[in-house]
């Protein structure tokens, strides 16, 4: 996978401290309810956030439904945990990649997704969107850059 030139160095770039930051990607492919995968993934992300790694989340296939707005779980008797995605910014998880093709195949657009933001510490706490819609090709590149990929 020969990409341009600017592949960031995962290690050493920060000036040789003992701590190594790895790039972690959590891949979410399943609908939010019906299985436990989506909720478990989110909990692992929240717990793992304590280790201060470079964390990103990817949403593809039915996983894009996890981020849709106006989820209502009353009819199925389980907790609607979708508001928790909005807390990810507090945990310094600020990169939520959503695959454009997966949205389109399901008749969805970015407008169907929740508004999820984070406050950028390096930019006077400006509110910025966490969701980044990317093409399948870009998603493949994002995956290729990771040190660790966890699939749910």
């Amino acid at each position, binding site marked *: 996978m020969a990409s341009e030139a600017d592949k960031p160095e995962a290690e050493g770039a920060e000036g040789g401290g003992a701590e190594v930051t790895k790039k972690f990607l959590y891949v979410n492919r399943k609908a939010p309810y019906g299985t436990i995968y989506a909720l478990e993934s989110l*909990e692992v992300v*929240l*717990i*793992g*956030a*304590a280790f201060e790694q470079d964390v990103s989340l990817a949403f593809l296939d039915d996983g894009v439904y996890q981020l849709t707005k106006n989820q209502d779980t009353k009819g199925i008797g389980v*907790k*609607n*945990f979708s*508001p*928790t995605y*909005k*807390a990810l910014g*507090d*945990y310094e998880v600020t990169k939520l990649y959503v695959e454009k093709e997966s949205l389109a195949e399901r008749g969805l657009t970015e407008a169907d997704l929740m508004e999820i933001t984070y406050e950028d510490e390096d930019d006077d706490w400006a509110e910025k969107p966490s969701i980044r819609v990317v093409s399948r090709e870009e998603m493949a590149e994002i995956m290729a850059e990771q040190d660790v990929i966890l699939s749910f």
Partner: protein
Amino acid sequence: MGAYVLNGVEIPHDEEGYITDLGNWSKELAVLIAKDENIEMTDEHWEVVNFLREYYEEYQIAPAIRVLVKAIKKSLGKEKGNNKYLYELFPYGPAKQACKIAGLPKPTGCV
């Protein structure tokens, strides 16, 4: 497993003392749980407990301690948004103890 008894009514809690049905919470119950934790509720304690309940209401999770500290710093100022202040109020862990008093589940990601 056990239960708090408030005005003759049993309110079940798990083995660590977190109430199992969040709907059972009341301010009176909070005072009772706090007493169990050797905490006398003051305005400062309530401020943190109320903050946690609002956070849960909005995000459906009890925040981890460092997230709590940061969020309190932002809304109540840095005199309160620091570990020392919060540990003085809740000596056995602000997130754990305050969440228990607030009637919330144990915080996700709290060690």
